[in-house]
């Protein structure tokens, strides 16, 4: 058996952005028909490396060889010309364009600047047939589901005849079943001779799909080898640089201390006091997410209830209606026994509701503001009315902010740094620090580990666990099943805005939950 042809070789790639060394002397090879996983924490340099390969960045040093010959990839057009295609983590699709328009963007059929709609749709259908996909080329991309949009992204790449396919965190937005479909597709493409580069930080998937694994940490290659010869522990150690990272269920302290005032007791067991009760909640449709239809759930003090579901099935609506940002059409929300359904965000927070939003850039932090401003929001909120002209950030508050930043090990420990300049993990620490400072009786967490590296995730889970030990009731809304199984006691599954299942995480399986997420009764 002859060794498979080497499609791609990256040698000594170095890329610097200002003071940040994103890639430092990185080597990477890809053979035809191979699935090679590129693994690392957020900020390790995986995406930068692939953007260099795709011609979006020029490397400061190093060489790229394609089919054995050196290649100058100075622009995406050049990279596409060499047969490289990239499916980005955040889709490169114009929402208002149709599928055919997006697939043919940049190489539109037609002469003299005319856009030949019929021909574009015909050619799109041809590529779809090759992949055995069935989509309407005239459908508006923005209206499609996320998984379907991802298929359109792959279509785009294959339409240009890519032989090297790069996928950046493709499974972040997919259910287990959709992930399996994607993997089958990738295997089929690999069998046909395409080389696949698969960027991920989800190790179970990497081990399921990849033939080879390369681990990057802080811009350097720290480990590279065949999947069969590597262990999960070795890869995790290489990714984080620590050997004590715990990836299993998060240990939680026993519930201690008094039950929050007003919480409805159930029987004589104080651990059973219901803090948050949602009763047949229905909302209006808002934005891209599904409206809720009669969702009921409850969270007890010290408990973590997970809400699983694919993006777009009501998770955002649930989070926003709980916090008070979305209009409720029917049903009720009770916090510690008090009816808060019509309360403003401010009143709910004053009553003890904490919220870590899924989009921390838009809702969690003032991006252009300082760390101090991001931390101070809770305290400032309480200074309303006549104290509006007093100082917003007095010395006492700044001292507290500095102490918090030190306590949470936020890097850099400068309270005047712009929030924008911090890494995802540090940003999330600020959000959580601010919310926990208010000692909420109920904390709503929406997609808390998105864009956060493993070390910071550990820390955040630890803080959440501590809070539950103090009686905080936590509602964990997450599209990441691993996260739910690590943290939650029970899991509620949302599908098309309805709560279709409620399971115990100790006894349920991922497939069972995944099935409910797809609307298939287990």
């Amino acid at each position, binding site marked *: 058996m002859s060794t498979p042809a080497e499609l791609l070789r990256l040698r000594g790639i170095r890329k610097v952005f200002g003071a940040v060394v994103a890639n430092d002397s990185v080597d990477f090879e890809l053979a035809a028909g191979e699935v090679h996983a590129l693994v690392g924490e957020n900020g390790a340099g995986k995406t930068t490396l692939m953007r260099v390969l*795709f011609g*979006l960045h020029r490397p400061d040093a190093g060489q790229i060889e394609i089919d054995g010959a050196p290649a100058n990839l100075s*622009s*995406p*057009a050049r990279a*596409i010309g060499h047969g490289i295609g*990239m499916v*980005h983590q955040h*889709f*490169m*699709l*114009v*929402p*208002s*364009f149709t599928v055919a*328009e*997006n697939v043919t*963007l*940049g*190489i*539109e059929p*037609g002469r003299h*600047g*005319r*856009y030949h*709609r019929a021909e574009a749709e015909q050619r799109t259908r041809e590529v779809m047939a090759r992949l055995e996909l069935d989509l309407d080329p005239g459908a508006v991309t923005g209206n499609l589901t996320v998984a379907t949009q991802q298929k359109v992204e792959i279509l*785009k790449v294959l339409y240009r005849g890519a032989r090297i396919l790069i996928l950046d965190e493709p499974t972040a937005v997919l259910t287990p079943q959709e992930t399996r479909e994607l993997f089958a597709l990738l295997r089929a493409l690999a069998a046909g001779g395409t080389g696949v580069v698969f960027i991920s930080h989800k190790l179970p998937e990497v081990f399921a799909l990849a033939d080879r694994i390369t681990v990057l940490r802080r811009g350097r290659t720290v480990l590279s080898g065949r999947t069969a010869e590597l262990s999960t522990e070795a890869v995790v150690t290489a990714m984080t640089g620590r050997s004590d990272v715990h990836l299993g269920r998060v240990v939680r302290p026993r519930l201690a201390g008094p039950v929050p005032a007003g919480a409805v007791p159930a029987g004589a067991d104080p651990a059973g006091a219901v803090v948050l009760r949602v009763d047949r909640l229905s909302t209006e449709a808002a934005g891209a997410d599904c409206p809720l239809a009669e969702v009921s759930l409850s969270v007890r003090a010290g408990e973590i209830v997970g809400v699983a579901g694919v993006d777009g099935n009501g998770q955002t609506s649930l989070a926003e209606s709980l916090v008070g940002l979305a209009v409720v059409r029917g049903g009720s929300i009770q916090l510690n026994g008090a009816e808060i359904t019509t309360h403003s965000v401010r009143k709910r927070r004053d009553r003890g509701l904490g919220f870590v939003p899924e989009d921390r850039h838009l809702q969690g932090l003032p991006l*252009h503001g300082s760390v101090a401003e991001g931390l101070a929001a809770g305290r400032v909120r309480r200074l309303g009315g006549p104290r509006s002209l007093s100082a917003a950030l007095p010395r006492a508050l700044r001292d507290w902010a500095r102490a918090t930043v030190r306590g949470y090990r936020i890097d850099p420990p400068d309270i005047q740094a712009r929030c924008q300049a911090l890494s995802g993990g540090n940003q999330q620490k600020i959000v959580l620090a601010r919310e926990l400072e208010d000692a909420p009786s109920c904390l709503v967490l929406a997609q808390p580990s998105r864009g956060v590296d493993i070390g910071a995730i550990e820390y955040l889970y630890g803080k959440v666990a501590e809070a539950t030990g103090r009686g905080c009731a936590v509602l964990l809304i997450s599209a990441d099943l691993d996260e739910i199984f690590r943290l939650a006691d029970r899991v509620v599954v949302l599908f098309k805005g309805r709560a279709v299942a409620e399971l115990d995480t100790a006894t349920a399986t991922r497939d069972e939950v995944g099935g409910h997420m797809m609307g298939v009764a287990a």
Partner: protein
Amino acid sequence: MTAVEAFLASGVRFSTPILLAALGCLPTRWTRDLNVGLEGAMLFGAFSGVVTGYHFGSAAAAVLATAVIGAAAGLGFGALITRLRASAFVVGTALNVLAAGATVYLLRSWFGVKGAFSSPQIPALPTLELGFLARIPLLGPVLSGQTPLTYASWLLVGFVAWASRHSVLVRHLKASGEHPEALRVAGGNVTRARILAQVWCFALCGLAGVQLSLGQLTLFTEGMTSGLGFVALAVVIFCRGSALLLTGMSAAFGLTSALSVRLDSSVLPSQFAQMLPYLVAFVGLVVLSRRSRAPETRMLTPTLED
């Protein structure tokens, strides 16, 4: 020609600069670099029309020269907002002030006059009596006898409407505004698209200015655009990208302006008559915002952060 026909004809004449400026501004809406300096560009165009007409003695030369100067200005503006990453809002606002100051400065420096400049040497735009248009019942006398720029603006409406659906360039313009990364990775040139939109905008705004200064009375007055640029901006924002709606609104504003000039001060004090176009625009703005729930009304958001 009856009084009504005269009124309608002047309405058409008034709406031409608004229509031209709005058609120019539309691609900048697509590329999300909305040009708020229409007022300034039109004022420069009016000035350029008078100066080049005076110098060359021919209206055609004035139109051509102004179009070329406008295109060059658009190139500069485009370079400023793409390569030099300046805010389109800030530069556009500054352009309005620059135009007001520079035209007065040059008027006094070059011609030594204050307030207005007129001369028998300045050629007027010819009016074309088009037989086939004049024969249309009712509207005939209104549609015929307009300047070439007016007819050009009507042709441009058709062209823009066609291009919106069928041209690759417009696809790229829209992509560079809505999702520039997508265009970039597809191998398209976002910078070129954005600059092209500004070149088009400035060239057409220049022509709009020429229509103002050479269209009926051949003179340049300080501040003669008097807010028409902002009215055109309002039209572009209201029209939701539809060329047909854009035309209709421009016509509506043109007629309102014509009305405000003709209203006798015994019917309505002159200041209130002058308010009419702005009042219509304001009411329209409120009604439109009330009816739409989309956040796209927030088109003009400038950014002060780097």
